[in-house]
């Protein structure tokens, strides 16, 4: 028993632990999600995050120890943002034909999401640094961190809020679109990519190829728009 404890203490302190735990739990969550017929509430990111946070709390493993392994996955967010150039390039034809409509929708949706988030947060009395971390929440996590830093928010909190926003969209968008009578997979996908970035887009990609394609396009557009316009918001706040 003592040997086992020592082995655990050793293993849980190496980067191997964070990496192994992240990928293993995610693979299991994906299998569960597939078995449940891709039900929105069984979102694999939500399940993985809850399971890992529970595991770390139970084993009293500090987050930095976990992150020393998980950072190898986290690092890939940068190249993944660059990779969004691929769906943008693939759909350059649609962009040229419908660019204005897509841009208008992305601008309106992105601005509405950021404004309501900050507005509601302000009305509910959230402190300044939390408000400034809320503003970029519809942008994909790595970019949101950079924007929050410029705005004077807390980058780590902004990233968490962005991930939560993605989860809210991925889990509830289906019901919202059904209630609003929005049937087109392209429109649904584009809205998911705009308002709940990578996690919403990942959900769209699983549901329908058109939805996925437009979600990827929206994700790329939102990243550009937010990086350009958010600093302007900083001046107002």
């Amino acid at each position, binding site marked *: 028993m003592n040997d086992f404890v020592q082995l655990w203490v050793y293993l849980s302190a190496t980067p191997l632990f964070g990496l192994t735990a*992240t990928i293993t739990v995610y693979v299991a969550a994906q299998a569960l999600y597939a078995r449940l017929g891709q039900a929105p509430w069984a979102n694999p*990111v939500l399940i993985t*995050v809850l399971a890992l946070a529970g595991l*770390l709390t139970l084993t009293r493993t500090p987050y930095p120890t*976990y*992150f020393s392994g998980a950072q190898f*996955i986290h690092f890939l967010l*940068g*190249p993944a943002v*660059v*990779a969004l*150039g*691929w*769906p943008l*390039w*693939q759909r350059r034809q649609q962009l040229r034909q419908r660019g204005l*409509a897509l841009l*208008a*929708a*992305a601008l*309106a949706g*992105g601005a*509405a*999401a950021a404004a*309501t*988030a900050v507005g509601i947060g302000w009305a*509910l*009395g*959230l402190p300044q640094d*939390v408000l400034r971390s*809320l503003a970029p*929440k519809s942008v994909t*996590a790595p*970019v949101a961190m950079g*924007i929050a830093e410029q705005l004077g928010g807390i980058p780590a909190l902004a*990233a*968490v*809020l962005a991930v*939560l*926003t*993605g989860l809210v*969209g991925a889990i509830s*968008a289906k019901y*919202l*679109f059904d209630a609003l009578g*929005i049937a*087109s997979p*392209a*429109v649904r996908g*584009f*809205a998911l990519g705009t*308002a*709940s970035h*990578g996690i919403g887009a*990942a959900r769209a990609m699983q549901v329908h*190829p058109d939805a996925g*394609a437009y979600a990827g396009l929206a994700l*790329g557009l939102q*990243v*550009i728009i937010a990086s350009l316009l958010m600093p302007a918001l900083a001046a107002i706040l």
Partner: protein
Amino acid sequence: MNVLRGLAVLLLCQSLGEALAVLLRGVHLHLPGPVLGMLLLAVLLGWRTLQAPVGQAADALLGHLSLLFVPVGVGVMTHMAVISQYGLRMLAALVVSTWVGLAVTALVLRALMPTLVPAPTQPPVTMR
């Protein structure tokens, strides 16, 4: 091998993007390096040689995009102080604003192009 070649292109674009971001900061333009890298990649993809490798690497990365958010998501446990104090209010702001964002985007897009409903044809991906 193609995936690896594509990954090399992505990382090179990101590196150039980061360098460009530092230069632009000098003229008070704040753009994240990966975003500049993305724009650079979209331009470079006009070069046919890059298309197949980048396509495969990008599809591999974007196909598992949600996994990449897990480490940050687990970070929620380090913000327990803020969450226990403001959790419900933050959640209210998050949920309502996400719904507003989704609804506004979808309604504006549907109003501006009601003809979008038929599926757009995707350009064929060149694979070797």
